[in-house]
């Protein structure tokens, strides 16, 4: 029986028959359907996915006319940064990095970001970020976001003033942990609004909130409140990108617009992000390294398709390392990357990547 080259979730190359691929597609989509209480992929979707996986070419692409918009996280750090962001350590300035992405990588949009890629550390150096954005806006044609992570972890001890839920919860101090998170929400919202307003003042096109929810439901709440304010008071386009496939309930009781944030999946997250006024939503589905990419991508497509169907704003699925059906490997395997691209555009019908 013919075997096809594919990958595991950790990037390891394996060979699978068409039947084995189909079995993993079925298992993956059923897992997502059960967890999210959503519809699994249709048989037509699975058959098309099989065509993608059994194509023996190393790389695949969408059919002409099915191209989508690409938005980016981490700015030019992947050029001048270190390994932590898969950076390749080229000594380029950020302005040069933006130019490289616009003119050599055919980026549709791009982002200015700081090496300490969270909102709180930007506050003391905001003037520097503003002058960088001003200069970039003069020479850039494509839309340019300012991006960072809400990262409520920077508000907890030892990095911030509030008690750390990671320390308080194991001690059973639930009330104290909740109070610390509620305080952090207030401060993080204020800081993100401050930075957004500063970027708006110097002509930024948009603001990107990357890995929203990384520090749990409090992290998402702070972001939604910041988005709500900024959409009412500035001209910035706003993209909200998530950190995980469901919102981790570290507090467990926080709500936005009467909806509990903990446990929300992409098709539920997008409705609140819309309500806050954001323009683009970037859902995440995490890759399981112990399963095949066939399982992972089918599962990711199920969640994302459900999200796209209910969304009223553009959905730009996250397809970086370890998410969106991409292997967890720092130099992404191109065969898997292009298969995820094609599948997300043509099966999940995303508006962007």
């Amino acid at each position, binding site marked *: 029986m013919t075997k096809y080259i594919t990958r595991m*979730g950790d990037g390891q190359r394996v060979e699978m028959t068409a039947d084995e691929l189909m079995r993993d597609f079925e298992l993956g989509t059923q897992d997502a359907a059960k967890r999210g209480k959503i519809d699994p992929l249709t048989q037509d979707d699975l058959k098309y996915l099989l065509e993608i996986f059994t194509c023996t070419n190393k790389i695949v692409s969408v059919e002409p006319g099915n191209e989508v918009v690409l938005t980016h996280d981490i700015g030019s750090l992947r050029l001048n940064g270190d*390994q932590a962001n898969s950076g390749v350590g080229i000594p380029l300035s950020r302005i040069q990095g933006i130019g490289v992405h616009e003119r050599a990588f055919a980026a549709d949009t791009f982002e200015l970001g700081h090496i300490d890629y969270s909102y709180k550390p930007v506050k003391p150096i905001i003037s520097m970020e503003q002058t960088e954005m001003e200069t970039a806006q003069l020479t850039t044609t494509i839309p340019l976001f300012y991006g960072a992570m809400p990262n409520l972890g920077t508000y907890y001890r030892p990095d911030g003033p509030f008690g750390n839920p*990671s320390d308080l919860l*194991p001690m059973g101090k639930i009330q104290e942990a909740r109070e610390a998170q509620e305080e952090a929400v207030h401060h993080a919202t204020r800081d993100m609004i401050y930075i957004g307003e500063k970027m708006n003042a110097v002509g930024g096109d948009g603001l990107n909130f990357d890995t929203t929810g990384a520090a749990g439901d409090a992290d998402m709440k702070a972001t939604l409140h910041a988005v709500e304010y900024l959409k009412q008071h500035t001209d910035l386009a706003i993209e909200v990108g998530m950190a995980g496939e469901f919102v981790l*309930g570290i507090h467990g009781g926080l709500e936005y617009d009467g909806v509990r944030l903990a446990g929300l999946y992409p098709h539920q997250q997008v409705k609140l992000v819309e309500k806050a006024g954001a323009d683009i939503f970037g859902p995440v589905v995490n890759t399981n390294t112990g399963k095949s990419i066939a399982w992972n991508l089918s599962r990711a497509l199920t969640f994302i398709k459900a999200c796209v169907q209910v969304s009223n704003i553009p959905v730009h699925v996250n397809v970086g390392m370890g998410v969106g059906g991409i292997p*967890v490997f720092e130099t992404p395997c191109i065969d898997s990357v292009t298969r995820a691209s094609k599948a997300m555009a043509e099966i999940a019908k995303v508006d962007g990547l």
Partner: protein
Amino acid sequence: MGKAELFEQAAQAVVDANKDAAIDIAKQAIAEGIDPVEMINDGFSVGMSRCGELFDTGELFLPELIVASDAMVSAIAVLEQAMPVEQTSKKLGIAVVGTIEGDVHDIGKGIVATMLRVYGFEVHDLGRDVPINVFVEKAKEVNANIVGSSALMTTTQVGQKALEQALKDAGLRDKVKTMVGGAVCTQRWADKIGSDLYAENATDAVTKLKELFS
């Protein structure tokens, strides 16, 4: 009330995080002469397993998990009064966990520490940015049989390999089971550095350690 029904009520009391109900059920079990160990394993622990599944699917959250475990621990405290001394207060294992040196990500590691405690392990959480020698010293001090490290960055992941060597150099490697976790870790990485276990997430960590130590 039949045993099966009481086991189910015990499990549900834990899922509902109903401490009072859990204590009452434990007392009722003693009064009816049900084996306390059976009551724990087939009743209250089943409830805790269900909580773990609900946590894994995002239907139950960390604070609720802790309150549920509090209900279970309270019930077990009642049952332990009816157990022979040698059966009581038996921890499944003694774990030393921490985020590896140079890395400050600790949310996932904190969840693992909490869940291991909930499931009956004695846990010593060293926190974040933990030097290798601190892992080793603590493991010696508490007579640990599990050493778990978390790394979220490829730059700090190498510390997990160094930890394996440090445990060997200290003569502890054969006395502990090592476990690695974190976003950049994979089974392949665990195999490469000689770690005994790889945990995809907190639930996976608990499942694998329970299998090993039960």
